[in-house]
């Protein structure tokens, strides 16, 4: 069961201590931004290593992770659940008996959507019996880069992982698409056409960079015209808790008489929040991805310096009950 840190949703991520930092090793420079910036704020590092596309900043990033003593786990398009859990259990055994909360930070900045989905699926569905697990999603936004101009052919269209297919008990219920807008040309409108949803709601990101916002509007003009301005909501990238509340509210309204598919294009933080939201609805919401796979050209995204965090807890309710009984 997930609970959210209602008391202090805006606490400063840079001042927290984490027991574990999980991140990814890829070709983007921003890969290591959080690991380096928060060096000293976490006890153990666990790095999911992309096996291919070892270009751009890959080698430098690897050297940095090695210097920070991260443990590496190869990502072969799936996450080895037993290895991840074994690592976490190792850490659990090493912390003091008085510590009731294990704090895990997940740097999603350079993870792909499948990796994020598998990771959160494992974390959120595991039976944590001995501790409260506090998960902090960390994200380092990138400095704006121009998107690819042409519409890329897609290789993957469907649930991000099968566990997020959603389970719909009434296929006759209208299908609602909740779409996070990004700036990739044609992706969102193509996905909506493919899905053939009854209706769609669009979530437009607002960030620090006006160029990004302008590009999002430009690339999605047709989609917005098709769906209608009254179905466009905005969310603030630097306020993930508020974003979560908006998604949750929208979902509550739609799920009463419909089926929901999240299409979380755009910033990865939005994608992560959508995934977390599905866990509040017992798997009855689908999360889809649309990607060009290897057709997407590697681009070295550099961090803009910010670190945005969003925290929730697992198993807190069970421990509260235990405390009450004591």
């Amino acid at each position, binding site marked *: 069961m997930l609970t959210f840190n209602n008391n202090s949703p805006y606490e400063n991520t840079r001042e927290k201590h984490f027991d574990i930092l999980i991140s990814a090793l890829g070709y983007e420079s921003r890969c290591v931004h959080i690991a380096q910036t928060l060096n000293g704020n976490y006890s153990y590092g666990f790095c999911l290593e992309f096996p291919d596309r070892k270009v751009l900043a890959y080698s430098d990033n690897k050297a940095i992770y090695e210097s920070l003593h991260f443990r590496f786990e190869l990502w072969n398009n799936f996450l080895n659940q037993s290895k991840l859990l074994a690592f976490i259990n190792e850490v659990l055994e090493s912390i003091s008996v008085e510590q009731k909360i294990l704090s895990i930070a997940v740097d999603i900045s350079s993870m792909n959507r499948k990796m994020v989905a598998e990771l959160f699926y494992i974390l959120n569905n595991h039976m944590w019996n001995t501790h409260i697990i506090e998960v902090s999603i960390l994200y380092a936004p990138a400095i704006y880069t121009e998107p690819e101009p042409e519409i890329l052919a897609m290789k993957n269209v469907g649930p991000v992982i099968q566990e997020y297919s959603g389970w*719909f008990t009434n*296929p*006759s219920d209208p299908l609602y698409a909740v779409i996070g807008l990004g700036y990739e040309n044609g992706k969102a409108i193509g996905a909506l056409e493919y899905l*053939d*949803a009854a209706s769609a709601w669009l979530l437009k990101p607002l960030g620090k960079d006006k160029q990004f916002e302008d590009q999002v509007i430009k690339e999605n003009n*047709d989609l917005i*015209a098709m769906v209608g301005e009254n179905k466009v909501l905005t969310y603030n990238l630097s306020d993930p808790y508020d974003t979560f509340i908006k998604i949750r509210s929208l979902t509550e309204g739609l799920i009463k008489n419909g089926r929901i598919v999240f299409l979380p294009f755009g910033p990865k933080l939005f994608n992560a929040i959508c995934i977390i939201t599905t866990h509040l609805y017992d798997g009855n919401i689908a999360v889809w991805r649309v990607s060009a796979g290897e057709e997407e050209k590697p681009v070295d995204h550099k961090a803009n310096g910010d670190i945005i965090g969003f925290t929730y807890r697992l198993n807190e309710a069970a421990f509260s009950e235990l405390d009450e009984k004591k």
Partner: protein
Amino acid sequence: MSMNLDPTIFDSLNARQLTPFQIAQSFIPPEGFFELVKRNSNILIGPRGSGKTTLLKMLQLPALLTWQHERSDEITRNIDYISAFVSTDRAWESQWLMIDSLQVHPNIQTHIKKAIFTAHTLRQVIEAFKFCTTDYLLEHSNLSKFHIHLSKQDEAILVKEIADFLLLKVDIPSFDFVMLQLKKRLSIIGEFIYKNLHKVEVIDEKEIGTFIYFDFMHSITTVIEILNSSFADKNQKWALLFDELEIAPADIRKELFNFLRSTDDQRIIFKLSISPYAQDLNLSNTSGSYAGHDYVPINLTYSRKERARPFCEGLFNQMCRFYGLEHLSAGKVFGISEFDRGNEEKGKEQSAYGLNSALYSRFKSLAEKDKSFRNYLERKNINLEQMESMTEKERASKVRKVTNLVCIRDTFLNEKQGIRTVKKTKLYTGFKTLFDITEGNPRLFLAIVGPLLKKYVHTGRPISDSDQADIVTIAIDRFRALLSTIPAPDGYPQKMGASLISLIDYIGESFQKNILREDFNADPATSFTVDNNTHEKIKELLGMALNAGAIIYIHESEETPLLDSLNGKKFRLSHLLAPYFRLPLIVNKSQNLSTILGVASESEIQSPKGQGSFTFD
């Protein structure tokens, strides 16, 4: 004049969102609908957006109750079956794929899928029956024949019988509770899948319940029999409407097609909708269902644009009536297409071919910059200054026949016979061209014509070429975005690019080359034939293109356009893509696909009737 600018029923994304009541309010029946309402089993064939869902939903009693049309009285008087509509979609399809990953015997996977389908179908049958117990039907003189008065006691008896048969635990003897319990079965299956996939605990498939072994058809027919005991006619007829079967699991699809052959139960007819290509149907199997014998096929695509026009005009007129604009001509709103100028202005005082005419200007302009066109004029003995005095027959065969090509070449060729960059052209505007671009596809028609007509209502002024061109461009962008989401199958030859859109681009650019980059040809190839040299995976991708509406099967009028193989078949690109590739909206000679894709060693063009082969002059 009505000035309704609020979102209308024409603005919805697709028919799924609309209730049967709403669909009926704007429904324009194509010819196929009058075949569909008959008491036959049918297969409705068409790509996405062709109106399959709308037509099936119109057979439901709530829709027929609402529908106002000159033939609605005749239809409702003659209809003698109750319809239950069973939908499916891409989101639901992803659940089938999850079941395929279960760590259970494949037979169990099949049983589970069938159990889901059975529960879904039963819910729709009961839903349809419940409507018969409402008083709405009493308000309609023709449809009141389906009304049943059902007391609480009667309902309880029926519910008990159904529950006993389906092994449902029903605490409250109401149909609503039965529906809830059927929905619960889907939750139970969902729970099983979750536990199995994530090995949360070892769970045997027996834990789900024996209902997964129930036979699909036996379950439906028995429940119908129980419900029929309430009707005066104990053999009340039913129609089971299964939509978008290309998305349903293959086992269920095959089973439904086999039911078409079965004549055991005369109470039930099937109306299935499917996209034009389904590889697993095995239509050539002689033990399978036969068109014309076991079912009547209804085609919702038009291989030639002229056949789509009456439907487009009907839909346009209905939209005008909605806005309170009776007898508004499409020509007044959108103007005349350049491609049709000669045809439209026939018989008018000012000749379409005179020295002051737009056509003359076009032909003259092209002749001045295109030597190969001048050669054509010379060969055909055409004097542009004397087109007006040609006989009608001569003008038809020498001038009107090439008008499309002349317009395109003149627009896009520069003086050096290179290709001009033209950001926006008015060439693909005008009412006939707009209608033709939509292919008679209702969804596309509403997307293109709908906003333009709305603007006309708002301004009272004809829609400019620029606005028309803009909306067509948006429609093309949307369509190409959709095509981009369809990946190539595994094993697809990499040199062809990895996607449907790459394949379509290959073909489109090849035709464009014939029309724009080669010497002027009055009969260029604008269609292709899938020959034996075509890679199997390319054929598979073409099947997806066909189902998406990117290519159109050119079939003989008496042929059923439902394919399980593309070999030897002739296709053209959707007219919607014509502006993108700068192609005429005509069906011409066919070229072998392997030649287009560069597999064959030399070009070979076949005439439409397949008589011999020849090369360009």
